[in-house]
């Protein structure tokens, strides 16, 4: 890669028009030769980044800075942390930056907001552009004053001469000059040790709008003349429509029933009537016989979805296992669980002169853009997707169902239409974190050295599947299965279950070897970053003096995925008569390189732990013969205030390492830590997630 290389730039007519809209000023476009730009543009169904630009910064004559990105804010705080990174490199106050996010007409193409990729890829990309912009501004000032640019200082949105006598603001510098330039690809970035804005606990951008109710989430969008839509849902998975009778619905005031192939929806002047109309439709369905929770894991193992290969293979697990001193063979299982974002899927669609605009909650605005293009046979320019900061996603909002439904209804109704899914629709029409089965065979020598590790995951996924424990003989393999329910992405995805299985097994090995679980881990872990979080968590938790009893258990787990390192300690109390389990205290140590925003990071790592308590203890989808049996919050338990333990979060700041994302991996540690604590207290090893769906430890 040639650094400092300046590529020629072509700005499309649209972008030029857009620039006019912004007024004059400096517009920075990162060279397409940037390694980061290419990385994020490849590997998604052959989709390449547009050649004209990969990212944008605009500095207005008033000194206001607009930053454009296809990443979206869903509660993970990147509207704030990305702005901090840009402010740092551009040398402007944080407050002068406005992030323009997730609007397909305004921002460069982006694959989507998932996989903890914003901090490791989008942040450096924007920082590169900010440095380039700063350098251009300095050069412009140097030219104006006829002075060596290296003598000038850029700070707080202005450039100052060495004697401090003269200064010019960025706004004044760009005014009237109509600067549009391409920028060097990979300029040097400010090291984290010198950060002044990045690395500090800047509060969430627009916090005021959230405490006053002013912020408009996707489901809050209102358009002039807007009507409300609702959709007829099938009775269950794989249901076939036999007959439909819509007369009663059509008799309701102002109701229009829209049928289009398998799709049946209604539009009404108000939301209440729209839902009444759907209920008034009489539909008869045929449902084929389908799997249920009962027998699910045998079904997943017996129904592979294509061939698979080992994810990791070294030595011979067969030989090493048979020659080991301590051997364990175990089977772990996990149920489907639901994201349950508090804001359900929602969209408002509007057609104007053949152009479709949709406001919707999605982690992939450009993915939804493509879905809409394909569904309605539109060109890229005929579709605009706008993603207002939404009521969370946790990996559950990758797809554009609500957007397509609203667009279909709006086209037929000839006016803007809003569709907001009910909670029941969220449970029955979205997708789940995959259920899965893990089978492990492990062996160690008497001295506690792991010698063999065989790990098979059926259906749950390959994320976090590799072991961080030094083991000479390994066979690790993910086996995809045919899933009876619709499944998809989720915060951390399979890393949670893979860590649960691995860390439960490791704990059991330690006990079988009569070794302390922390000592056993440290004996077999060489990665210094993982060792550091284990030590930090154990120290804060006072692990060495934590002695379990039948009524009180202490457990620990650790792991790494997506550049984050985590160790979690849990203390649980077991009610002696009911055997109910309560998580009393948790300590979680976390490290993901240089910390961009310690307050936001702490919030993420703590929130992930709290969310993880649900999947660990009680969340599960119950289904039978294609029907979801608990599609309501009264039947699907999520963590509440009363489930939340006292939590200590320890952040290790590695300013010498690049920042990794932190939205996901903080969720992986709590389930095995609790399971290990339950074992320490009761001697019962629970190998199924959720651990205690009926609240108590069921004796196996």
């Amino acid at each position, binding site marked *: 890669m040639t650094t400092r290389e300046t590529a020629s730039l072509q700005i499309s007519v649209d972008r030029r028009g857009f620039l006019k809209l912004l007024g004059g000023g400096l517009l920075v476009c990162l060279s397409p030769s940037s390694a980061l730009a290419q990385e994020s543009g490849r590997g998604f169904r052959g989709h390449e980044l547009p050649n004209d630009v990969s990212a944008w910064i605009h500095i207005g004559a008033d000194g206001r800075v607009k930053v454009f990105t296809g990443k979206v804010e869903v509660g993970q705080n990147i509207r704030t942390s990305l702005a901090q990174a840009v402010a740092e490199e551009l040398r402007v106050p944080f407050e002068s930056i406005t992030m323009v996010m997730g609007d397909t007409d305004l921002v460069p193409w982006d694959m989507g907001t998932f996989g903890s990729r914003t901090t490791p890829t989008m942040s450096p990309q924007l920082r590169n552009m900010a440095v380039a912009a700063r350098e251009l501004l300095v050069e412009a000032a140097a030219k104006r004053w006829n002075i060596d640019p290296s003598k000038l200082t850029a700070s707080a949105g202005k450039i100052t001469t060495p004697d401090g006598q003269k200064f010019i603001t960025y706004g004044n510098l760009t005014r009237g000059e109509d600067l549009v330039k391409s920028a060097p690809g990979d300029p040097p970035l400010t090291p984290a040790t010198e950060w002044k804005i990045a690395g500090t606990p800047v509060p969430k951008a627009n916090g005021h709008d959230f*405490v006053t109710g002013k912020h408009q989430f996707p489901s809050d969008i209102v358009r002039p003349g807007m009507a409300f839509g609702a959709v007829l849902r099938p009775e269950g998975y794989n249901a076939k429509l036999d007959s439909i009778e819509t007369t009663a619905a059509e008799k309701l005031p102002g109701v229009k029933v829209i049928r289009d192939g398998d799709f049946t929806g209604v539009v009404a002047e108000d939301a209440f009537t729209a839902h009444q109309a759907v209920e008034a439709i009489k539909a008869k369905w045929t449902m084929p016989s389908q799997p249920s929770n009962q027998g699910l894991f045998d079904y997943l193992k017996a129904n592979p979805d294509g061939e698979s290969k080992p994810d990791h293979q070294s030595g011979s697990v067969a030989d090493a296992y048979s020659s080991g001193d301590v051997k364990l063979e175990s089977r772990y299982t996990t149920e489907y669980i639901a994201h349950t974002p508090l804001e359900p899927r929602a969209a408002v669609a509007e057609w104007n002169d053949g152009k479709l605009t949709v406001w919707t909650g999605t982690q992939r605005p450009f993915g939804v853009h493509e879905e809409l293009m394909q569904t309605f046979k539109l060109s890229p320019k005929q579709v605009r997707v706008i993603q207002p900061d939404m009521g969370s996603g946790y990996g559950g909002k990758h797809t554009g169902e609500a957007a397509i439904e609203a667009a279909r209804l709006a086209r037929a109704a000839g006016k803007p239409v809003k569709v907001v899914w009910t909670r029941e629709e969220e449970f029955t029409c979205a997708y789940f974190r995959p259920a899965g089965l893990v089978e492990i065979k492990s062996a160690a020598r008497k001295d506690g050295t792991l010698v063999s590790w065989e790990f098979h995951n059926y259906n749950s996924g390959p994320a976090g599947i590799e072991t961080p424990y030094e083991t000479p003989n390994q066979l690790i393999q993910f086996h995809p299965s045919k899933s009876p329910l619709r499944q998809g992405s989720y915060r951390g995805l399979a890393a949670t279950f893979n860590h649960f299985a691995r860390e439960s097994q490791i704990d059991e090995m330690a006990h079988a070897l009569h070794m302390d679980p922390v000592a056993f881990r440290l004996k077999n872990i060489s990665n210094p970053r993982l060792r550091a979080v284990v030590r930090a968590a154990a120290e804060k938790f006072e692990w060495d003096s934590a002695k379990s009893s039948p009524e009180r258990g202490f457990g620990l787990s650790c792991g790494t995925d997506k550049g984050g390192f985590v160790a979690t300690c849990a203390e649980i109390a077991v009610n002696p008569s009911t055997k109910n389990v309560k998580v009393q205290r948790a300590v979680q140590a976390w490290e993901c390189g240089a910390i961009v925003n310690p307050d936001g990071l702490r919030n993420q790592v703590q929130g992930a732990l709290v969310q993880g308590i649900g999947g660990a203890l009680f969340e599960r989808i119950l289904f039978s013969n294609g029907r979801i049996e608990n599609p309501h*919050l009264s039947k699907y338990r999520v963590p509440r205030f009363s489930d939340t333990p006292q939590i200590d979060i320890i952040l290790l700041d590695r300013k010498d390492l690049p920042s990794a994302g932190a939205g996901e991996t903080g969720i992986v540690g709590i389930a095995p830590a609790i399971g290990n604590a339950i074992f320490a207290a009761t001697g019962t090893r629970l190998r199924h997630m959720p651990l205690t769906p009926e609240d108590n430890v069921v004796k196996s």
Partner: protein
Amino acid sequence: MSKFLLHINGQDHSVQAPDEESLLSVLRNRLALTGTKYGCGEGQCGACTVLMDGAATRSCQIPAAAAAGAKITTIEGLERQGRLTPVQDAFLEEGAYQCGYCTSGMIMSASALLHDNHSPTDEQIVTAMNGNVCRCGTYPRILAAIKRAASLSAGGTR
């Protein structure tokens, strides 16, 4: 279908809606007061919490027509002449949210709690707030914000 007056945030709104339509639906879909959120429709998540004559009420569980005559306060009605309430201030200061979708309901429930009990214990806060779900898991910060709001109020800053 009925016609009635709703008294919301100090203003009268004339509403025409079916008898069974919820207060939440009327607020959001007829009066464009979208600060109050839909989360579950069965009174389980607290996102739709409003104050009715000072009491925290799940607006998805009560027909709008039944709210006629009551003094209703929604999240939009808390700020007065640009001044936030201690609860709103405390949520900002503690950063007691992530996506912010539960925040309206949390603030309304917490406001009712602190109105009735000026210095609640942790246990009383957990009991009072347990019907409000934050799926992002910011409960420890919300708890801290409520305690901070209690001390802000006690300090006579408002």
